[in-house]
């Protein structure tokens, strides 16, 4: 029996003798006796069958929903079969960061392709190979904008609250002042941002579509930021860019976002994918791995990790970021997803999500669930009033196998994707009607 150790006890004894020892214990003679562990207080090891049963029972102790109307930072989209099939290939799964380019062209090329797709999607010039998630991407973007005399950041209060919290954490330790502009009617007021901009403002962060699904007046905010000499960072939902104007088109300096909607399952919050793209001018401030194209000595096209002078293993305490491992396999997942979908498929996902959300909003509107964002344009999420207690409503929906929207400020933040068919929406609405009538 072995726990992934091929050497038998006899082989181990032989190897010990080969290095001049008689027992395994001697390998640890250097450890002070007073702190040597006698026995770990853990259960004994189990067979694969037993482990499988035990962990499966944990999975089954969760309730999963076929019909999901909850978004708020994690989105339920269809994942084409080819995506999982490709990303579970053992070569991709078990490789390390591609330091040795000669035997890592596969991973390196896939990252180069991912970088290209993210630039296309966001309309920007340069992409890195990924960071941990959308929230850390936003925080890293804020740190990218630090200049000697410009430190502070203005953050839209209509952004995802978790993103704002992570930005605050990253900024606090670097003494970067953060001002959050409260949302007005589920949106950011460009005038409120303009009023706060000073000569010390390094950057403005706005999410579009924002946490409430509203499509912001990003062009006005970008202009205001630039007029004051500050950088514009925009957090985007990558699916929305199948339709919406790109950060490049309205002149943002950095685009970041949560890449999970691009083929990654909900997975209770992770692994997810933080993407970051920027204008060429900021290329050398971008954190994380970046893959570049070059040639080998025979002139053949080759891909390598490049611009490493930014990174921790070269610059140490002067590095642009401490990031080492990123989310490479998640980036490959997004890349395969985008290739499988193609430009038409991506547009279809965006259009279906948008249209389902608008259909649901209209149906709910007829039943007293008034839009809190008024007539502002929205993408695939929207916040409504809730004539009954949202927690009670969600409990009733759960009984019918439906995961309702997120209770927010006494209302509900709803989300639709291409997976919420008309029949599913109609069923939701009829149950909502029943609950409200009770």
């Amino acid at each position, binding site marked *: 029996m072995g726990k*992934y150790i*091929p*050497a038998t006890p006899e082989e181990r004894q032989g190897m010990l003798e080969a290095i001049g020892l008689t027992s395994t214990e001697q*390998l640890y*003679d250097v450890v*002070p006796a007073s702190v040597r562990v006698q026995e770990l207080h853990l259960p004994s*090891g*189990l067979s694969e069958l037993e*482990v*499988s049963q035990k962990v499966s029972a944990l*999975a089954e102790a969760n309730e*999963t929903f076929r019909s*999901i109307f909850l978004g708020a930072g*994690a989105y339920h989209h269809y994942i084409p079969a*080819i995506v999982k099939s490709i990303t*579970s290939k053992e070569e*991709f799964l*078990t*490789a390390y*960061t*591609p330091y*040795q380019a000669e*035997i*890592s*062209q*596969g*991973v390196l090329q896939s990252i180069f392709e991912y*970088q290209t797709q993210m630039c*296309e999607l966001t309309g920007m010039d340069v992409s890195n*190979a990924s960071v941990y998630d959308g929230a850390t991407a936003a925080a890293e973007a804020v740190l990218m904008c630090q200049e000697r005399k410009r430190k502070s950041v203005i953050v839209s209060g209509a952004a995802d609250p978790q993103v704002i*919290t*992570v930005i605050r*954490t990253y900024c606090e*330790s670097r003494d970067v002042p953060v001002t959050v502009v409260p949302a007005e009617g589920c949106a950011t007021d460009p005038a409120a941002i303009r009023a706060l901009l000073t000569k010390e403002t390094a950057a403005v962060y706005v999410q579009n579509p924002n946490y409430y699904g509203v499509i912001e007046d990003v062009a006005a905010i970008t202009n205001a930021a630039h007029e004051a000499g500050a950088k514009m960072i925009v957090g985007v939902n990558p699916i929305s860019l199948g339709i919406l104007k*790109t950060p490049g088109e309205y002149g943002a300096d950095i685009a970041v976002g949560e890449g999970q909607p691009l083929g990654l*399952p909900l997975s*209770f*919050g*992770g692994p997810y994918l933080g993407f970051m793209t920027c204008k060429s001018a900021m290329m050398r401030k971008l954190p994380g*791995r*970046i*893959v570049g*194209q070059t040639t*080998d000595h025979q002139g053949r096209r*080759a891909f390598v990790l490049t611009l490493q*002078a930014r990174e921790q293993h070269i610059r140490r*305490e002067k590095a642009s970021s*401490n*990031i080492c*491992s*990123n*989310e490479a*396999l*998640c980036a490959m997942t997004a*890349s395969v997803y985008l290739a499988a979908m193609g430009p038409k498929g*991506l547009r279809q*996902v965006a259009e279906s999500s948008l*249209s*389902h959300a*608008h259909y649901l909003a209209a149906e709910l509107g007829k039943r007293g669930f008034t839009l809190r964002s008024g007539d502002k344009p929205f993408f695939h999420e929207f916040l409504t009033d809730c004539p009954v207690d949202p927690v009670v409503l969600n409990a009733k929906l759960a009984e019918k196998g439906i995961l309702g929207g997120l209770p927010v400020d006494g209302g509900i933040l709803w989300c639709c994707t291409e997976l919420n068919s008309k029949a599913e929406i109609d069923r939701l609405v009829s149950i909502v009607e029943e609950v409200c009538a009770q």
Partner: protein
Amino acid sequence: MKLLFERSCPGRGSDLLPPCDVPVTQLPADLCRESAPQLPEISEVDLSRHYTELAKQTHGVNDGFYPLGSCTMKYNPRIDEEMAALPGFTNLHPLQSLDTVQGALEVLHTAEQYLCEITGMHAMTFQPAAGAHGEYTGLLLIRKYHQSRGDAARTKILVPDSAHGTNPASATMAGFTVVHVPSNAQGGVDLDALREVAGPDTAGLMLTNPNTVGLFDPNILEITQIVHDAGGLCYYDGANLNAVMGHVRPGDMGFDCVHINLHKTFATPHGGGGPGSGPVGCKAFLADFLPAPRVVEKDGVYALETPAHTMGQVRSFYGNFLVVVKALTYILTLGKEGIPEASAGAVLNANYLMKKLADRYTMSYNTLCMHEFVMSLEPQSHAIGVTAMDIAKRLLDFGIHPPTMYFPLIVHEALMVEPTETESRETLDEAAEIFLKILDEAEKDPEGLHAAPHNTAIGRPDEVAAARNPILRYTAP
């Protein structure tokens, strides 16, 4: 080989979605992008073959020996993958009501208990998504602790000169100034130098033990004592935990907080550079500063709690949850017997391979090592002009992933070798023969070695050109 974009042909693709079944919403034109993104249009068969070809040009643990020092490239068990792919985990929305995610919370809670036992800590967060992210989180714990005591003078983090680059980079991100501590002749921390720099401005020490030259620092109890006496805290970089699990615990060595790389020590795959997971454990007195939320259990029911003086969040939700599922599966499989056995196996394999190479390769330290050892090609470099890089590149021709090159910085022409416990004696014997054969080649024909590798998809790439004229995306001709 061709890029995805070079395989694209307008009009190709797959019917993946039904037509929209509600009236299509039209947004005002000024909100919409002017043209579609130039994504490849590709048939499913071409897409499938494209990645099969890319996979053939990727060396993973499953393709062969991978003794990449400091990265712990052990075998990634298949059952761990199968468990993490269970729909009861993958289809869970992170914001579902807590009564519907009790199994997932139990995963986090149980993994916390087990990993705290292994590291000698009292509380843990899974929010950090990688080792460096864990370092950052641990340093914020230290920062919050000193702040809570009104001790604003503690602005310096002590880092040995043998440390990973992430240590000083993380310290800077956490708002500290880095003070380097020199190593002694045995590769450990120079105690006198440490005493000299430890003082009222010391926030803490970051230490990897065993360190990056693969040696356990026998003075560890004195080291942590010196830092504590000066009023600082001790941070354990868990990068090399695979050497000592079940034999000695960071908590017992005097460390106050620790990060673990689940993607090294706990056998979860590296994915070509992530997703990893870098949970951070701490002693009870630091638990109130941990990121929010934390999983708590009462009478068999799991809930989420915000620690009293939380640092906030370092990532969204609960970190890389599926990676934690894999690590928990691994711990359940190994158990209290298998965990120390894995570490002992890693140390045995490293010493066995070192012994086989020691007659011909110069070992940096002439003593038993832990889970890895560092050789120096400095003698060959001076005598025949063959470098660590040349040896590494020639190894590629034999299907072996080279050791870590030119690290740690305190050893010149370094090759850092970490075989891990999951390699058999035959694999180590064969690898040793290849290492020795390459040295023979180097002595006979040093020039020939500069041209290696010969059998790989590409030869040595021009990295200087890549950085000088960056081409970072495909552009259609």
